[in-house]
């Protein structure tokens, strides 16, 4: 493989050396035993169970705590091995064969002791609401129920306590989902035994979960992976919602008598003698309430951390049921569930995750996956699904990474994981990657969500960057005939742009077919992504003015001297401009552009330029009045942003970087960036003006908005942490002072509490927190206003998009093959509004009343379809529908 030739070619890296050393730690016999249990089945799961049993019995006296911990690690970190751990624990319930005979279970066997200890650990997971661990332990218990070790009645009671959670008043979706999955999956595995002991139980579980999911319909509507602006219904063809798949799999299992798809290595063991063996009865548990949900009741509610809002989870299907498992079937659900668990558990090491995922078939019943090319087919396959492993992995990883509004792990983890899977087996995984890309690409025509499209283009670029930018672009040449803003063309444009950012222009041009090089193709940026200094050309107006400022910068003049130069420059310029031009604005633009020109060589040069001339920037941001920060005027700050956007108009990445640092250095506020994006972005590039006006949002504008909103939110979060720290410090100090006061109280006189000096740091942190919270609210409010004026423009709006309302009908959607630029523009803008609502919903909820009053009041009593849809998306997101 070429990808690591250079890497391995040189001298060995110390990193490798250290890894070797770590593995050589001397282990005690107990540690070795623990490791043997954890490594159970790495070669042949079925054969190794007995060997590990012997190893356990051979180490006397048994260390029950160590054994239980080993089982815990095995079960919670390697969920695909759970059936085999159950089998091992089942064997440990036998009495050791004394005279080579009489293998009978005993009430106080080693296995029983381990299980009792194991239970305590489970109880701790539940108490701490460690849902993942809890769920895997339930899988383990379910197998133990099937192996007759645990009493079915007590297990049913355990599942019941999770079902109870679904009936809690105002239960959050995240909590309900996790509880429902615990109950559903426990039932899937142990259903046969449970239904024979309590025939009505399966149906009760299904009904409870179904009753819950029926309340999630509006949530499904806002996160379904395809956008249907005309329809209030949930219409998803190529994706499945997680809880729905669980219900469907359960129903299928129920009607098949719970003939489950799980390996059951214990099933061949001789049955336990019920006369002498009492199954373990699981004590009852109570699922405690969420800590955060309680915190909401505390007095400092507004200072508590904002919890991520959870929504129904749709996983995209990319392949047919004959290629990859259908998660609505019991076997399909089980495979999907295992793979998702592995992706989450091994997030700490994507390389190992990739290896383990590719080894997954050995943990399922034979015939589940197609044998590897060259490998002999299994002798007697138990099932004949013959799914394709690589396609299944791709579908599952991409499915998890494209969950809306937010994936569980960060995007780049999934991207990196796919890269690693490819690196291990390029010849088999490569084709699955290609097919996945084609499938996602083709669904762009059918309303694939804009945020999914954005993540898709990011993954595409990252993936290509790891595999020599080899993609068969020429198969997409026919799509160049589509409307310029058609999602497919927008995708090609962004994908190429992101590739260029990771590489460089000439390299990417080389990877594209000729037909995509032309300006009409609109795939490549119009020119290499360099700076565009407006006053560079001596024939341009104001060239001399710009040169005079540049000379000061180059001579490292002091900021004050530049500021006084600007004063005289203003007078000179005043005489040669037309009446419609604003001289202050012109000075700001020339100065900002000149400063960016000085800093245009690299990101570091930019930082140096800004840092050296902070007082200058602050002066012009304030409209020339003052060099103190935070005093900027909206108009002046908009000019600075415009100058920057113009300077980097051929390099959208740099626009985002400059904006970010202007916010970081507090030249502009997040709200300024939001306002600018809605009001001025269309003015940047005149030649692109026909693409931009009437105003619409594409991925570029959305990224600017998102960066500004996240900056505002991040500042509040940092301030909150600081405040919490200072509060604790302050409380401690007060407690100490009080304690001291108590000691002095010896003569029986009750002295008043010693006055504690006012905590200056705390007071200023409180002030900062409240002003940042205000800024956050303004940024969100401005965003909402911006969207509303784009999508339901009033007749007097500056750039009304005539199509914003037209495309909302079903007829229009079915006619989308004839949509032009403006229709797709409007459609994409709607998509970003929908994403804005659901992605920022936890914050929007906090300010719902004010924001609604500001943005929706003018629609009162109207029957504008755009207003109705805006309001509906909003209501669903803030949980008011």
């Amino acid at each position, binding site marked *: 493989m070429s990808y690591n030739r250079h890497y391995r070619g040189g001298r060995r890296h110390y*990193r490798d050396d250290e890894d070797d050393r770590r593995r050589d730690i001397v282990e005690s016999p107990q540690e070795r035993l623990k490791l043997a249990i954890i490594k159970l089945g790495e070669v042949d799961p079925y054969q190794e169970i007995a060997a590990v049993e012997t190893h356990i019995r051979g180490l006397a006296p048994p260390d029950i705590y160590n054994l239980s911990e080993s089982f815990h*690690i095995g079960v919670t970190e390697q969920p695909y091995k759970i059936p085999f751990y159950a089998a091992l624990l089942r064997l440990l319930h036998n009495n050791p064969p004394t005279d080579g005979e009489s293998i009978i279970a005993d009430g106080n066997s080693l296995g029983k002791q381990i299980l009792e200890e194991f239970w305590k650990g489970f109880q701790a997971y539940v108490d701490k609401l460690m849902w993942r661990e809890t769920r895997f332990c339930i899988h383990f218990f379910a197998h133990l129920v099937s192996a007759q070790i645990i009493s079915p009645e007590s297990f049913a009671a355990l599942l019941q306590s999770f079902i109870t959670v679904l009936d809690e008043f105002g239960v959050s979706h995240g909590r309900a989902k996790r509880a429902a999955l615990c109950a559903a999956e426990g039932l899937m595995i142990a259903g046969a035994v449970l239904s024979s002991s309590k025939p009505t139980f399966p149906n009760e579980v299904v009904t409870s979960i179904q009753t819950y999911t029926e309340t999630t319909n509006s949530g499904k509507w806002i996160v379904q992976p395809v956008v249907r602006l005309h329809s209030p219904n949930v219409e998803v063809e190529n994706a499945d919602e997680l809880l729905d798949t669980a219900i469907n799999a359960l129903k299928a299992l129920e009607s098949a008598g719970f003939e489950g798809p799980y390996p059951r290595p214990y099933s061949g063991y001789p049955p336990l003698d019920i006369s002498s063996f009492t199954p373990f009865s699981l004590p009852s548990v109570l699922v405690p309430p969420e800590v955060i949900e309680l915190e909401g009741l505390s007095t400092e509610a507004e200072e508590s951390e904002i919890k991520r809002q959870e929504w129904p989870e749709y996983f995209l299907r990319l392949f047919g049921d004959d290629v990859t498992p259908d998660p609505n079937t019991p076997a399909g659900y089980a495979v999907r569930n295992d793979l998702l668990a592995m992706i989450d558990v091994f997030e700490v090491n994507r390389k190992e995750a990739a290896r383990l995922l590719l080894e997954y078939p050995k943990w399922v019943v034979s015939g589940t996956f197609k044998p590897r090319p060259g490998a002999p087919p299994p002798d007697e396959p138990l099932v004949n699904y013959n799914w394709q492993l690589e396609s299944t992995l791709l579908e599952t990883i991409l499915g998890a990474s494209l969950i809306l509004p937010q994936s569980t792990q960060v995007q780049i983890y999934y991207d990196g994981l796919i890269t690693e899977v490819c690196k291990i087996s390029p010849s088999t995984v490569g084709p699955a990657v290609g097919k996945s890309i084609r499938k996602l690409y083709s669904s762009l025509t059918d309303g694939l969500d804009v945020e999914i499209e954005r993540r898709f283009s990011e993954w595409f670029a990252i993936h290509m960057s790891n595999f020599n930018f080899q993609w068969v672009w020429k198969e997409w040449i026919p799509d160049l005939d589509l409307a310029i803003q058609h999602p497919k063309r927008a995708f090609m444009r962004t994908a190429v742009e992101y590739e260029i950012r990771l590489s460089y222009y000439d390299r990417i041009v080389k990877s594209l077919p000729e037909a995509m090089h032309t300006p009409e193709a609109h795939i490549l940026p119009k020119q290499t992504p360099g700076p565009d200094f407006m006053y560079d050309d001596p024939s341009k107006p104001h060239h001399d003015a710009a040169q005079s400022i540049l000379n000061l910068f180059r001579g490292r003049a002091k900021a004050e001297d530049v500021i006084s130069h600007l004063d005289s420059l203003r007078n000179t310029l005043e005489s040669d401009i037309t009446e419609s031009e604003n001289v202050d604005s012109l000075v700001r633009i020339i100065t900002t552009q000149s400063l960016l020109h000085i800093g245009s060589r690299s990101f570091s040069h930019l930082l140096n330029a800004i840092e050296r001339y902070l007082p200058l920037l602050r002066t012009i941001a304030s409209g020339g009045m003052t060099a103190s920060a*935070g005093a900027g005027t909206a108009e002046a700050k908009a000019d600075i942003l415009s100058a920057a956007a113009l300077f980097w108009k051929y390099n959208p990445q740099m626009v985002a970087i400059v904006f970010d640092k202007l916010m*970081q250095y507090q030249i502009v506020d997040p709200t300024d960036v939001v306002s600018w994006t809605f009001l001025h972005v269309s003015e940047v590039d005149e030649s692109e003006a026909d693409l931009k006006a009437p105003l619409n949002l594409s991925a570029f504008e959305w990224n600017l908005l998102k960066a500004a909103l996240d900056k505002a939110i991040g500042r509040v979060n940092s301030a909150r942490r600081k405040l919490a720290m200072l509060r604790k410090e302050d409380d401690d100090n007060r407690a100490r002072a009080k304690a001291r006061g108590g000691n002095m109280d010896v003569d029986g006189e009750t002295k008043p509490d010693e006055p504690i000096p006012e905590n200056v740091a705390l007071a200023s942190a409180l002030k900062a927190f409240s002003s940042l919270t205000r800024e956050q609210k303004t940024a969100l409010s401005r965003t909402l206003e911006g969207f509303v004026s784009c999508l339901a423009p009033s007749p007097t709006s500056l750039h009304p998009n005539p199509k914003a309302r037209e495309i909302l009908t079903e007829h229009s959607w079915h006619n989308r093959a004839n949509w032009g630029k403006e229709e797709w523009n409007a459609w994409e803008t709607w998509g970003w509004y929908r994403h804005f609502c659901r992605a920022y919903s936890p914050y929007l909820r906090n300010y719902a009343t004010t924001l609604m009053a500001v943005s929706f009041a003018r629609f009162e009593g109207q029957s504008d379809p755009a207003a109705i849809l805006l309001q509906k998306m909003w209501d669903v997101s803030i949980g008011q529908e």
Partner: protein
Amino acid sequence: MAHVVQPLDQPSNYKDSQTRIDRKRQNEMLANSTTLYIGNLSFFTTEEQIYELFSKCANAADGGGIKRIIMGLDRNTRTPCGFCFVEYYTHAEALASMRYVSGTKLDERIIRCDLDLGYREGRQFGRGKSGGQVRDEHRQDYDPGRGGWGAQAQRLEVERRRAVEERYADAQDGPGAVASGGEDWKEIETTQGRLKRGRSPEDEGDSDRMGRRTKIEEVEIDRM
């Protein structure tokens, strides 16, 4: 989940030969580090390419982001010599890069990340005899991305080289040569109308106690 697999976000046992900080303190610093050392870069890779890749691990909504990038330069020629430092605002972002980015390709080379004690003056320069990195002194192979072994780099890269060679000709050393990237948000006095001396990074937060505290910490670190 460290029982079954080794997490990728552990620092290596690299030791900065020029640091005078004791090992224990170094480990503490690494446990909170927001800075990464990035190695095996092509000499032609730009800060913007690095920014693009590492911004995937940035978490602005948690108060994070890319603070600055310090390109490693050849001591003599002031041209990139194949390493850099990426500094985030939060430790979690540095860990995420270790997990998800280290060992993937940038500019068609597998790059390596390591948690770092943090940039100090002078560390942007190569420490090899000839001005570049030590590793390139001993290298036996032909590596076009790192100057080859002759001057026969590929045609495209010659073009890129020209830009690269000029880019840092103005690189300075000494205090203040490297920008800070902007500090955390802080309350600002809004004294309208008064043209006071501009604030510079050195006198930030001089009005409140918290600010003084940060400053003392900085001095301590500088001393070490």
